[in-house]
């Protein structure tokens, strides 16, 4: 069973629909006790970094998720803001992220990019993810051009290049897919990305 962490800021409905469609089982989880019964977790998220961190602490899920990911080594997938929470920090806020992925989240900055004056933030719409590794479980059965739906104003930049799994170009290349052992993160919304996203969710369900 996949726990969908509900801290009041996620597109839980869309993710639950996708998991059901791909033959998986999910449950909306708001407490540490509920999380303990799951064998995988998804951290969704739309909204602001600090508010998310604060709410997860308030629900008593922060330590529980650390235990789940680092001690029990169960798979955790972060989506959008959920992916950013896996990183060390974000320029959007002052709170610390989980730090499971060695990366910092930064606001898109095109000041050094020539001809980027027409780029509008947020980065909103369909864009391509270019895998930078070959044997990674969530890239199984990937096609030539994998397109995903993105909506975000901040993007991850890894310190440890081994944690970068896929990159996307918007003014410059940023780390749109990250991972380390049992931790997986997608900046885009695979649950809203047709067959491309279905492949990602199928792979996560099959882990």
């Amino acid at each position, binding site marked *: 069973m996949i726990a969908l962490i509900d801290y009041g800021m996620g597109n839980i409905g869309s993710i639950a629909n996708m998991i059901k469609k791909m033959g998986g089982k999910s449950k909306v989880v708001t407490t540490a006790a509920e999380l303990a019964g799951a064998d995988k977790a998804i951290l969704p998220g739309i909204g602001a970094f600090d508010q998310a961190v604060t709410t997860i602490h308030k629900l008593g899920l922060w330590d529980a998720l650390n235990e789940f990911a680092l001690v029990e080594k169960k798979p955790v997938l972060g989506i959008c803001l959920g992916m950013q929470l896996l990183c060390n920090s974000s320029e959007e806020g002052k709170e610390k992220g989980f730090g499971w992925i060695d990366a910092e989240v930064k606001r898109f900055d095109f000041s050094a990019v020539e001809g980027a004056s027409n780029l509008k933030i947020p980065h909103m719409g369909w864009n391509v993810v270019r895998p930078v590794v070959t044997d990674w479980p969530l890239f199984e059965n990937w096609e030539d051009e994998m397109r995903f739906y993105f909506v975000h104003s901040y993007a991850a930049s890894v310190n440890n290049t081994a944690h970068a799994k896929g990159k996307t170009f*918007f003014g410059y290349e940023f780390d749109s897919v990250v991972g380390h052992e049992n931790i997986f993160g997608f900046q885009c919304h695979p649950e809203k990305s047709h067959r491309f996203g279905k492949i990602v969710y199928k792979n996560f369900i099959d882990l």
Partner: protein
Amino acid sequence: MLANRVIPVLLLRNEGLVKTKQFKNPVYVGDPINAVKIFNDKEVDELSFIDIEASKLNKTPNYKLIERIASEAFMPLSYGGNVKSVDEVRTLIKIGIEKVIVNSQNFSNAQLISQLSDHFGSSTVIAGIDVKKNLWGKKELYSHNATKAQKGKIIEYCVELEKRGAGELLVNSIDRDGMMQGYDVELMGEIANSVSIPVIACGGAGKLQDINELYSKTNVTAFAAGSIFVFHGPHKAVLINYPSREQLKEIWKKQ
């Protein structure tokens, strides 16, 4: 690179899909769930659903229907139709909607967009703007499904909506709705140059070249349409359709 978007706008009336002409004479074109399934197969960029009677009749969103639609939608989905509060939007997001379109309420509640934007982020909030020519050919703001004229200058109003926290503007030309004679290139271009958020142009697309024309002549990056995606051929038979990847590549070649 980030792709431009082509967005079918589907109109809800009761439980069915309709298509209007100049916001009038709704003609039944099918079942919304069936339409979503077809648009899934066609890998559409995004879908918008607008309940055309919700504001006029002051109805709450039909959550049951929207949830059924969302459960079949594996693309970004927006909903418009008498959205009035943070709580309603929370429910809509919970059942699978990504963005809400707020239009008529912006004239009576100047705080709504900023409240929604503070709670859910600006990328969740689309401000809808309906424009219609008056008897003297001057373009004016309208609300409540083209039944209420509103005061204010169009460009100033668009800039104001961005300031309030809207993440996108959905601009609809009432006179061109369903006419399939092309977009209002001048209006859409002017608005796109006046704001820094994406403008979704709507109203008038009758062929793919109309999208290409607007794309070529303006800074618009999102192209919405109704008739072209639900009708086919000279007799306007109902047929859900969407350009193929190859056709889209042709559209994104500037004239």
